[in-house]
């Protein structure tokens, strides 16, 4: 049972992977409440930082578990939660970034996201009429600010804005969304329910080989020349298999092979023999 702030730090930086975060988070919450009631803003802020670290580790572990279970979209959403929490924390907490595994998690989130097939996202357009401050709940007024700044920590809480009245004015398709969870799915023509039509072979390839969330791996995106025979019989007017969008005759017909994107995984842990073969095809 953790009691003090230094014990909480020890647990969060321990080489043993924490699985049950609930006791740590509730202990942080209890100490933080006491600091807030004593008006100790500095300690409350430190505890908010540790609470965020626990939250980041928890979401990261969830993402790892979901990838292992083949719940790829759900894992994607957990990775976004990690990313958002890291961004909230970044400006307040720099010293122990490596010690608490945040550097590792930060790098892995980016690498994992790069393995996903999502390229286009939905982006809602909102006109925000009324907002309140998440700390004091005062309505936001442009000429009479409440004094709480977005992104700062007050009373052990992150300051944001809560939209209380808005109009939905449109939806766009974008390549660089603010909310990464807004992935469009096709709907099943028979049932009308959404169905996951994406190709998760890359993230699945990693998932079945990755034994533990803090074991390291790297991924590099490059290109490779493939023999034309791999793509079957290609007609002159067919779409070129290099994905240029051009006809084959106007693209790779006269080349030695087809240049396509290629992914190189470097695993820094042993891979069981039966998983060392490449079964992905292209």
């Amino acid at each position, binding site marked *: 049972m953790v009691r003090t702030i230094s014990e909480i730090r020890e647990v969060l930086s321990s080489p043993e992977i924490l699985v049950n975060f609930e006791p740590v988070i509730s202990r942080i919450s209890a100490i933080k409440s006491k600091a807030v009631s004593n008006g100790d803003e500095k300690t409350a802020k430190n505890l908010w930082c540790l609470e965020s670290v626990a939250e980041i580790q928890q979401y990261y572990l969830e993402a790892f578990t979901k990838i292992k279970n083949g719940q790829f979209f759900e894992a994607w959403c957990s990775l976004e939660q990690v990313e958002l929490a*890291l961004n909230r924390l970044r*400006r307040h907490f720099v010293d122990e970034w490596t010690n608490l595994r945040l550097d590792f998690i930060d790098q892995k989130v980016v690498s994992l996201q790069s393995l996903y097939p999502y390229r286009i996202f939905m982006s809602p357009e*909102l*006109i925000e009429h009324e*907002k309140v401050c998440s700390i004091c709940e005062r309505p936001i007024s*442009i000429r009479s600010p409440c004094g709480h700044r977005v992104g700062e920590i007050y009373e052990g809480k992150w300051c944001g804005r809560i939209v209380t009245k808005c109009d939905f004015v449109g939806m766009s398709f974008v390549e*660089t969304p603010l909310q990464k969870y807004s992935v469009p799915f096709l709907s099943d023509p028979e049932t009308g329910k959404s169905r996951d039509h994406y190709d998760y072979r890359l993230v699945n390839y990693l998932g079945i080989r990755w034994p533990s969330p803090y074991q390291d791996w790297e991924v590099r995106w490059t290109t490779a020349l493939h023999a034309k025979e791999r793509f079957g019989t290609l007609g002159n007017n067919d779409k070129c298999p290099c994905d240029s969008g051009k006809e084959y005759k106007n693209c790779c017909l006269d080349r030695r092979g087809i240049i396509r994107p290629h992914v190189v995984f470097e695993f820094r842990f042993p891979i069981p023999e039966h998983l060392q073969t490449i079964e992905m095809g292209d």
Partner: protein
Amino acid sequence: MANVRTEGTDKTLEYWANRPYLSDTVRQSLAQANVLVVPSEGFRDQEIQVFPVCTEGFYEVLRDELPPGTRLEIAINDSDYKELALHSATLIIASVVVGTTTLLILPVVVNIVSEYINRRLFNEKDRKESIVRWELTVVDGTRATKLTYEGPVTDFKDEMQRTVAEFSATVAPPASESPLLLAPPLMNEAKLNGENNK
């Protein structure tokens, strides 16, 4: 400059001070201002004035960091203030209009905006990959010039600083320029840097 577009505009300080949606009190206050934060008008052909999301924080930063003597205002009534959230990763900063009586303030404004962008995008990866859009209008009497930056965050400060330096060289400040507003930009930059190191 690769990412800066320069064009003439009829949206002078006078234009903004006479917008029909402003109350008399705000209109009078605007008439005294020399740095204005202005809305986007007619979003999707609607008669509505909107500011990019987070303008509230941007306005506070300007109020805190512009040199003493600057008269900052925002061209909207308090009760009509609305923000537009497009939820795309392009960082859109509210447009600013500056009068040439405050010509020497231009590099300071660019510095403030640049530091504000760096604070919004605290993650280095986001800074390297993000696109920013910002409009700065400089008004010289009845003539106004709009400088629009749209490009990588990493190039913003250098390109905008060079653009305003070149632009300022072409406009002679009026003889009545207030000495208060001619505070050397370097002094203000030092103040800014000092604040950021805290």
